Each structure stands twice: as structure tokens, then as C-alpha cells.
């Protein structure tokens, strides 16, 4: 409600306001690489590399401004390993080498226009330990919710987790960014770093499902979440009714729990806060990057994937 009032005030002022243009001659940032890479042991390394631009400078329809001519060199344990090749189908740079446990993976990304970016990550994560996981679907206010229950046994140390359903509903992607915390064995873990939560209940955005173990180090952490399942297609209400009454409705995909490194954690939670901030928020929202002379992150993860079909219990109507 507080957000509604503030937004209403700004909305009213915008409606009543007069809009005009002014020139800006201040300092803007140079264009840089934007890097995103999530490394996993025994998997090829894939770099998504695009570029930033000064506000208003992206070309029209340039919605995915990938950089296709960068020199991306990978080093393993400070020894040059290979130059990554660009895959035009997936629009990313890929390696042949598959990182092993305890490898230190460093990289440089370079081209004439965006300069040189550097970063590194060490593949020293251990597998997350899950004592129990289950899920069921419930319907609240004619909306599907995925209720996920999980028990995580933390092994001590500084750990960062990412819990993210990767779901499809009848071949359509499901957005699970809005979530309600129904239960936490330790209060304030899941939304600790979230800047945008509702005052009514523990609901909010944790776009990438990241949290840290500061409050449950070396303990079991029980978490019960209710994901609002929004589908990515038009007329979903009609299809929703059609699908719900059909016998072969299935939610497909998996729930992924991963341990991630600090680079990834810092970037992802700040990115989530920026995504869900409103334009008239008067404080700037900063993103924690882990690549020098570039934006973005290079991190690594250790994942466990749970097939949704295996963990889904009988559907509940409420």
C-alpha cells in the first residue's frame, strides 16, 4: 500500500506535469564489454559478451547487442589455455576445455573498441546438500502457485546459494520472479538482499533466487516458497482455463539448487534489485560487477537439478 501511494503521487504528478527536453553535456561512461559467464566443472565454458552504450545510443531494434569480434582468451591456473571461438548460432564464445575442480580460470576479453576486460574465478565449490525437497501446485485467486519445500544442509564456510525453478507449462516458459516465503527456519534469509518486497507478508522479487548462509552456517535451513506462476504468452487466461481442465496438463522442467561463488551472488542480487526498481526511485541502484573494465560477472556454480515431475506431489485445489 505504501508503494501504491507513492506511485500514485508520482503518477498523478506525471499526468499533470509538463514534459520537455534538455541537453545533457555531462560526463557519460565509455562503452564497455558486458560479460556474463557461469562456469561449471566438467562443462564447456560459455561467455555471453555484449556491450554497453551511452543512454539513448543503442541502435534501433538493437535489443541484443552482442560483440562478435572480441578476442577471448582463457587461462587455467595462470597458464594460457585457449582462445574461445564464437558460436554464431548460440551467439556466445565457447571453450573446448572443461574446467576441473580447483582450477583457477582467468580470462581476458579484448577488442579495439571496448578495450580490455579481465577477471577470474576459482572452481572450488562443493555440491549443495539437500536433505529433502518436494513441491505441489496450489491455486489461489485463480492463479497457479508452485509451492516448493526444501531442506538444505549447510557445510559451514562462506556459501552462496541459488534456488531457481526452470519451468515450462505446456511448452510455454513460466516466469517465477515473484515469490512468497511461506516458511523459513531462520528468518530473513531469502529476501535479505532484496530491495523490493511487499509489506504484506513476505513477498517480493528475488529474480535469481540467490541467498547466503550468514544466518544458518553449518545448520539445516528449511525453506518453503510459493512461486506465482505467470506464463509467457497472450490470452493466458483462456488457455489457463483450458489447460487446467485438461487431464494431460503437466508442469515441465526442473528446480535447480546451486552453490555459486561470491562474484555471481553479488552481481545477481544487485541485478535483481535494479530490474525491479521503479524509474522514479530517487536513489541510484548500483550493480556489483566482478570483471575489471567491464560490466557483468564471471562466476561458477555447482548445481543439483531436480526434475519437477519427480518432486511434484498431488495437486491441491484451494
Amino acid at each position, binding site marked *: 500500500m505504501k508503494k501504491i*501511494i507513492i506511485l500514485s503521487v508520482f503518477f498523478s504528478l506525471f499526468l499533470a506535469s*509538463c514534459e520537455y527536453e534538455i541537453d*545533457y553535456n*555531462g560526463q*557519460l561512461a565509455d562503452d564497455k564489454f558486458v560479460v556474463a559467464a557461469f562456469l561449471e566443472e566438467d562443462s564447456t565454458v560459455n561467455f555471453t559478451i555484449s556491450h554497453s552504450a551511452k*543512454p*539513448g545510443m543503442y541502435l534501433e531494434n538493437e535489443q541484443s547487442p552482442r560483440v562478435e569480434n572480441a578476442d577471448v582468451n582463457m587461462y587455467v591456473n595462470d597458464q594460457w589455455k585457449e582462445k574461445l571461438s564464437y558460436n554464431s548460432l548460440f551467439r556466445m564464445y565457447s571453450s573446448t576445455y572443461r574446467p576441473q575442480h580447483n582450477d583457477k580460470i582467468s580470462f581476458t576479453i579484448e577488442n579495439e573498441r571496448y578495450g580490455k576486460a579481465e577477471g577470474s574465478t576459482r572452481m572450488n565449490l562443493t555440491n549443495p546438500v539437500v536433505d529433502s525437497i518436494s513441491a505441489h501446485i496450489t491455486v489461489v485467486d485463480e492463479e497457479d502457485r508452485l509451492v516448493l519445500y526444501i531442506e538444505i544442509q549447510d557445510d559451514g564456510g562462506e556459501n552462496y546459494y541459488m534456488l531457481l525453478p526452470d519451468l515450462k507449462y505446456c511448452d510455454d516458459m513460466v516466469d517465477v520472479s515473484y515469490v512468497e516465503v511461506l516458511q523459513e527456519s531462520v528468518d530473513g534469509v531469502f529476501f535479505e538482499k532484496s*530491495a523490493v518486497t511487499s509489506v504484506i507478508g513476505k513477498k517480493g522479487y528475488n529474480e535469481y533466487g540467490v541467498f547466503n548462509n550468514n544466518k544458518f552456517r553449518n545448520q539445516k535451513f528449511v525453506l518453503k516458497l510459493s512461486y506465482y506462476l505467470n506464463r509467457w504468452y497472450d490470452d493466458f487466461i483462456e488457455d489457463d482455463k483450458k489447460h487446467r481442465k485438461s487431464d494431460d496438463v503437466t508442469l515441465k522442467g526442473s528446480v535447480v539448487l546451486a552453490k555459486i561463488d561470491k562474484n555471481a551472488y553479488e552481481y545477481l542480487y544487485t541485478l535483481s534489485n535494479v530490474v525491479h526498481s521503479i524509474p522514479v526511485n530517487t536513489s*541510484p541502484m548500483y*550493480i556489483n560487477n566482478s570483471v575489471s573494465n567491464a560490466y557483468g560477472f564471471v562466476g561458477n556454480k555447482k548445481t543439483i537439478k531436480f526434475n519437477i515431475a519427480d518432486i511434484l506431489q498431488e495437486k491441491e485445489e484451494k
Partner: protein
Amino acid sequence: MKRLFLFLFCILIFASSHAQKLYKITGFIYDANTKETLIGATIRNLQGTTGTTANVYGFYTFTTKSNTLELEYSYVGYEKKVMKLNLTKDTTIDVYLSVASLIQEVVVKDVSASRRYVTENIPGKMEVNPQIVSSMPTLMGESDLLKAIQTLPGVKNGTEGSSGLYVRGGNVDQNLYLIDGIEVYNPNHLMGFISTFNTDAIKNIDFYKGAFPASYSGRASSVMDVRTKDGANDKIKGDFSIGLISAKVNLEGPLIKDKTTFSLSFRRTYMDLILKPIIYFENKRDGDDSDFDFQYYFTDINAKVKHRFNAKNSITASFYMGRDAYGIEMTDDYMDSYSNTDASVSWGNVIATIDYAAELSSGFFSNLSLSYNKYFSKISNTNDMNDDFEGYNYKSTYNYNSGVEDITLKNNYNYYLNGWNTFDFGFNYIYHHYTPEITSYYSFEDLHLNTAPYKVDHEKDANEFRIYVEDVMTFTDKLSLREGLNYNIYSVEGKTYSSLQPRFSLRYSIIDALSFKAGYSLMNQNIHLLSNGMFSLPTDMWLPVTGKIKPITAHQFSAGLFYEWKYDINMGIEAYYKKLYNVIDYKDGVSSFASSTDWENLVSQGEGKAYGIEFNVQKNAGIVSGWISYTLSWATRQYADGTINNGKEFYDRYDVRNQLNIVLTSSLGNGWNVNCAFVVNSGSRTNIPVANYYNPLATNIDNMFLVNIYGEKNNLCLPTYHRLDIGITHSKKVKYGERAWTLSVYNAYNHKNAFLVMNSEKPNVLTAYSIMPIIPTLSYSLKFR
């Protein structure tokens, strides 16, 4: 410690060394017609350079060695009175001043203010003439005290049109607003566009930017001490006025002649009353099954009753209530389905005070007061939906309450020891009850509880005790000193903070018309306001210090030259330096929508620095009067924990480098008055992205959003702000009094002043938004007697 005792010993020796025959003259100064006391009236010895002023109760003490003297009594808008005295003993003289003759126009004369400008030994004090405030051009027909204050040197306005004060680098929550000695937490109506001060009810306004007297504490940057009228003693009189959005009625007069007086002021917007029948008929005319209702209004009530037991004792009961209320209701009733949404927001202040004032003995004055003060903010939203055909029934209720309640006991004393020492001392006890947030939400579906009821209940109690002592010492005709101490103890949730706050100021008369003044003050603040920062909203929360969040401390040095020129013109130049500790702000990345839950982890405390130089030229009398002020200033912040701007120093949002204000009022004769206010200042600061990129983790077109990259905090100065307001008034005597028509034009040349800028889709071009176009207003007032 030894040096302190030696210093105090010297003071006592000095005080006693002047132990020769002194004559003391005491009394009250009144309006000859209404018997209203005149706060700040000047008493001057025409045969020397000594003088004094009446205190907030209109009481004065003048001490002299000479038994023959000429005393001049003067006050704004009144004719001076000179009394030749031949004293044989201490004497009580009550003085009655008559209003200056009006020759078909209102001529503002404030000769006494000219004198005090030079002789007062507080460099940061400014007297604001209520008559000038009332005559200034208005926004929407509402004369506004805080907007007038914004035109003084060293004071910045915040968002366009708002009444927020940013004084010498301080924040909007660092200003202490007092009505008859009691604090007002939220002095705003209509999101800060109009203040709660009804100028028609005001008798006196003192505004302090620095070198604060020891009797004030609780805020770091400024004090505005407003005294309301006691009520006329001669006959019942009043006035009525109506403007674009509100109407006002003021009434005052005697209840018991020469004993008891009352004053009553009422203001209310009326647009909702006009809209109500229109909405009703519109709903009927539609003929459909949906109804809509909307309401917004604000109101102020000031009421005061004063009873004088005798010349030395009086008791006053005063009451203030201000409220904003907004409501919207939508109902849809069609066949088998029914839905109703009812949302309302209200906020305001309630203040009730009983004050007993007494002259205990010659030159020893006391007052004892007990008051209740409440700021409240409420939001509620109820949704009710049912559909018999679908078999659906849903109801939800949301309630939000926030506020502060204080109970205050104050006991203050003025003691005029002799002609060279005047002591002020006293104590205050305040019980605070804070309710930063009480939120509850529950919903029912099909008569079953839908979601788990949600309730946040944060309440805190605090006790505050203040004791102060201050001595005003007049060494010679040329040199006077004011030194004081305020000691404050604040206890909340098992944590106690104490602070010893020294205050010091001096005045040295270089020549009779030219003074050098300097001052130092340490102010402590035990409360913070969490707000969105742009507007005053009912969702703003007052929160006390905690074990983790420390009080704000402000050290301020100021010094300047003050000159009284001929033609009743004052000129002054003053420099200041202020250092703030434990200022508070949201950490980078934290939304200002956050609940008060865990608020201590959402904010950071750091340091602030502000310095500048202020020029002021003020004309207090004549056909044309007003002031021109210019300020050159800097204000920065730094949060060393790295959570804001990576720990680097940055310019504060209201670091407005240059500010020029011109306020003029002129009497043209034949009842015509013209006034204008011209404001031009550097733009305030805001944040603009310096780059952006598309989400590198996007998996489909729908989450391919742009991510903004920010550089230094407050990296952009908004364009220069400038605005001209003009007003024309025509007054005419009518059978029962005097009527006046006023045409006011806010932003007369319709300049678009940006209050918000955002990136546009074009390179190197920003989109700016302005909200205050030219706003003409016609208002009518009638004074009846």
C-alpha cells in the same frame, strides 16, 4: 576543569562588580486597542545605546544606572512611544502602543526590526514579519509562512512548490517547528505544497539558522518559533477570506473584558464540497451500476483562550488541529456480482497546551506548561467482491498507522539579574510514544481466511529530559555575550544518550550602526525521518535513535557584519561552517518503499559538511519594503562504511550553489498594493545513468530489460531554477470593515522548472518534467469589526 571554574568565578566577580545603584523598569507591552501583547517589542534608551526586547509573553525588563532617561518603545506597524522618566525606585510600566496611521494603504513599518538587526547578539536569527508573509504572492491563494522562509538567505526549498526547508546544508527533518512552544512534527498539507501555518493566526515569527539560544534543542539545523495571537481585548472582530482552494475564518475578542480573550482560526479546502453533488449527479446520470466517489480536503483549526488573573499572572489554553484526508470509493453492482473498493488516507497534527505565566518578582519571570502533541498518519483499504453466479466471495482489509505522540512538561525562567546579566534557564521533560508502523492485512475468501493475517507492530517509548541555562551579558554598550548550555538525556529501549550542547554568541558594535556578530552552537537530534525524499507523504516515518542508530550532532560556526543604513535599510553579510555527524540516508540500492521492519539495516550514518556566505539587504519601512538575499553555499555528505557512493564524498542533493531571492511589497496608494517575489537559483542535484546495457542473462524478449549504470551520486545538476510570482491587492473600507481583492500569479512567465529528469531515447538529451505552470488565483477577504 580549573580553567572552567576560574572563568565562572570571573563571571561572578564581573556580575557583582557592577553592584551600584540600579533602577529596574519592568512591565508588559500591549497593543493599545486589542491588549494583545507585543512579542519582541524594542525598548531603547535614547540617551545611550542600551536596550532590550520584550520576551515571548510581551514582558520586558530594562535596567539603568541613571534615574533620568528617555525610553523609546517601538514595534512593527505601531507608532513609537517615548517616555521621559525620573526614577526613584524600581518601577513597573505597562506600555500601550497604537497602530500606525493607515492612509488608505497598508504600510509596513518595522523600524524596531532594523534596530534589532544590529543590536541582537544572535547572528543566525531572522525575524519574519507576519504582515509581509501575508502580503507576499501566493500559490493557489494560500499565504504560506514556509514559502516565505524559503526566500531568506541560507534556506533552500526542496522540490518545486513544496514547503520543505533545507537550512545551511541540513535535511528537511532537521528543522524544529514550534507553535506556542510546542513541536509540530509535520508542518505540511497537500504533500508539502502548503504548510500548516495559518498566517492569519500568527502574531510573531522568529527563525534561527545558527547560534541557537540554549532553550532550543532537538533538531540540528534550524528553529522556527511561531507564536499565535492571544485575542483582542477591545471587541469581537474577525475576517473571512476565500481563495482558489480554501476558505478561512478568523475570530477574536474578549470573553471577559480586560480578563479573558479568545482567538479562533479555521481554514478548510472546499473543492470536495463542490465536487460532492457533481459526483452524485454524475453517478445518477450514468445510469449504470457503477458508482465512484472521491474526496480530498485539508483543514486547520487554531484556538486559544487567555485569562489574566492580574497584571502578573495569566493562564493560556491553546489548541491546534490540522488534517489532510483523501478518500476514494468505487462500487460496481451488476446483476449477481458486487464489488466495492474503499481506500482512504489521512494525516495531521493535534496539539493541546496549557501554559501558566507569572512574574514571580521584579525581573523574574516564569512559565510552566503542559502539552500533548500528536502526529498521525493512517491508510486503509478495503476490498469486497462477491459473485453469486460464480459462487465467489472475497474480502480484504489493509490498515496502516504511523505517528508520534508526546506529552511535554516545560518550566522556563527569565531572570534579569541586573543591567548586564539576564539569565534564562529551565527544564523540559518529554515522554515520546513512537508508532513508526502498525500494519495489518488479512483477506477472506468464501468466508474462509485466505492468507495468514499479516501484522507489523512497531511501537517504542522514549523519555527525554532537557535542562538549560543561558546568560546574556552586556559588558559595555559595545560588547555583549550570550553563553549557554543545554544538557539533554534521551532514553529509548534500554539505551540512553546524553549530550552537553554549548551555545555561544557575541556582538561587538564597531560603530552604532555597524555590528560584528559571531556564534557557535552544538545541536543534537534524537529522531530521524525516513521518507522518499521528494515530497511530504503520509508514508514518511519518524523514528527515534536506537542502540545502532546514533543521534545527529551539528557543530556550527558563523560570523558576520550587520549594518543599519539610513532609510530603514539593513545590510548583512554572514559566513557559516557546519559539520554534521551521524546524518542518515538510505543505502544505495535500498528502496524508499521499504517497511520500517529492520530499517536500521537499510540506512547508513555518515558525515555532512556545509559552508557558505550569505548576503542580505532588507528594507523595513516605507512605500517599498522587502528584501534581497543571495547565498553562495556548498553541502556535501560522506558515508565511510562504503554503502553510499562507495564511501566517497559527494554533493548533497540540495547543494544549490547560488541562490538569489528578491521579495518586494509596495503601496501605490488608493488602496492598491503590489508585491512580487523573484527566485533564481542553481538547480538541485539528481542521479542520471551514465550508461546502460541489456540484461546479459535474458532468456527471452520479455526479460530483455535495460540496466542503468550510475556514476557518482548526485552527478547531475538540474537546470537553473527561476520563477516570478506577483500579486496585486486592492483594499477598500466598507460598512462593517475592510474588504480586499487579491490577484496572485504564481510563476508569472510560466517558466518550466524541472523537478525530475530522466534519460530519453535520444543521445545526450534528457527528458525533464515540470509540475508548476503559471497559476493565477483570485481571492477575496473581508475584515469585519
